[in-house]
């Protein structure tokens, strides 16, 4: 019995178990590897999808407004972060009908340098593009954020306010398409009493000038005078206006008691650069709701002794001529008065 039991113990087959174990291990390893690989891919897809969704969500949460403004006589803008997340400005596009400029972190002439990060409810009060404003030109400013959102603004502002509508109703229907800002009537002398009819003559005090209602008479100061006023295009048909070189500012002397000889003086329209230098005349284009400053620099005579004298009290008119859309345009604006002391 003992011999038989020993013999049967020797014959017990374990090879099948070992083989099955090895085979199972091999297949299990392959299967597990495949399963882990598929799981890894699925995990990567989920992470990427979550990041994409986060990016889209943040892009939707990001909101900002842009408005044009002048910064040291350069075209600039302000920006308000009205969204719920911090935003970063990476690029700025500035253009008008004849000009285009792209700005990013490599542009050193801009202030402050890009990129600029602004917190929620925060503001960028001024961004200076380093581009001098050309009078009469409408600039479009596009701001690109790091998340790919774009906001646009304009300089000068294009906003339709109730005041603008009222001014259009009162003035444009009765007087003409250009509305004058009475508070903008300014007067300048020239540096070194340079003849302002000459290009390159510096106006002073620049840019503020002085109010033009009461002035020292040129006869007493022996200095040239240049006048300026702001006008806004309020054409109800929203057309562009072009002012030509026939436009003038005219001053008529108040008649003396009991009558007298009528006298008047005329200043021709001109162009002044953003830094206050007189320039050769070129047509001034004014878009709908755009406000531009008109300068009347071409003097009536090179002899300042023929200018208004002390005590003269003059009525000021602005005669405008040019084109509106494809037709000619003319307007006479009774403006203000100037008293010479």
């Amino acid at each position, binding site marked *: 019995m003992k011999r038989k039991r020993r013999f049967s113990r020797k014959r017990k087959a374990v090879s099948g178990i070992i083989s099955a174990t090895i*085979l199972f291990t*091999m297949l299990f390893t392959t*299967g597990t590897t495949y399963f882990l*690989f598929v799981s890894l891919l699925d995990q990567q897809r989920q992470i990427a999808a979550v990041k994409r969704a986060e990016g889209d969500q943040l*892009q939707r949460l990001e909101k900002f407004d842009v408005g044009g403004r002048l910064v040291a006589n350069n075209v600039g803008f302000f920006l308000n972060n009205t969204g719920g997340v911090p935003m970063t400005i990476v690029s700025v596009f500035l253009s008008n009908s004849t000009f285009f400029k792209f700005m990013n972190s490599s542009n050193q002439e801009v202030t402050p340098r890009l990129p600029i990060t602004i917190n929620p409810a925060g503001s960028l009060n001024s961004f200076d593009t380093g581009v001098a404003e050309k009078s009469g030109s409408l600039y479009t400013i596009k701001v*690109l954020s790091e998340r*790919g959102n774009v906001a646009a603004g304009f300089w000068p502002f294009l906003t339709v306010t109730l005041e603008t509508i009222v001014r259009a109703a009162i003035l444009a229907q009765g007087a003409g398409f250009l509305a004058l800002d009475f508070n903008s009537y300014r007067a300048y002398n020239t540096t070194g009493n340079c003849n302002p009819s000459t290009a390159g003559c510096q106006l002073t005090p620049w840019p503020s000038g002085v109010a033009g209602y009461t002035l020292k008479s040129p006869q007493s100061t022996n200095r040239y005078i240049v006048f300026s006023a702001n006008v806004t295009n309020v054409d109800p048909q929203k057309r562009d206006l072009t002012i030509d070189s026939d436009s003038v500012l005219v001053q008529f002397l108040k008649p003396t008691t009991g009558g007298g000889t009528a006298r008047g003086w005329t200043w021709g329209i001109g162009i002044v650069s953003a830094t206050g230098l007189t320039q050769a005349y070129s047509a001034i284009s004014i878009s709908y709701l755009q406000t531009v400053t008109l300068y009347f620099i071409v003097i009536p005579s090179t002899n300042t002794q023929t200018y208004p004298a002390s005590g003269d009290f003059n009525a000021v008119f602005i005669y405008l001529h040019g084109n509106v859309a494809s037709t000619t345009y003319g307007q006479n604006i009774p403006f203000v008065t100037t008293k010479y002391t």
Partner: protein
Amino acid sequence: MIIAVTIVAGGAVFFYVNSQAAVQETRLGEANSSYLNFLNERFVTVNANFSSNKVTIWFYNNGNLTTKIQQIWIWNTTRSLYVAYNSSGVFSGSSSYPVSLESPVLSISLPSGSTQKITLTLPGTLTFSASRTYYIHAVAQYGNTYTYFQVK
């Protein structure tokens, strides 16, 4: 003997299964990679500057990887102008034109966080008209698209 037979037979099965798994893993990996690139690729068209027969288009990459702008279509509302640009040429109607109308030639590289411009010239006598709306449809390397429109 049984062990040897089992190992040989099992080994054959193992290598077959392993090779099939490798093929599937390669396919899955490629599909996954393509999908991940699609998710990570994002871009926008920021601006377009029109002249009489040219347009300069600005793209910004707000995604997480470098991509390429592969194809651009431009059309107007009436489809009287419909031009396609890619790296092999420019196509309008049944006519084709050389890639010299693209500067730089598509496909242009657009690294993450960067802005890139491309100037496209209209073929033949086609021109952009003032006050008309033009649509610009761009296709990037991994399949994302962006349609932008602007009035000249």
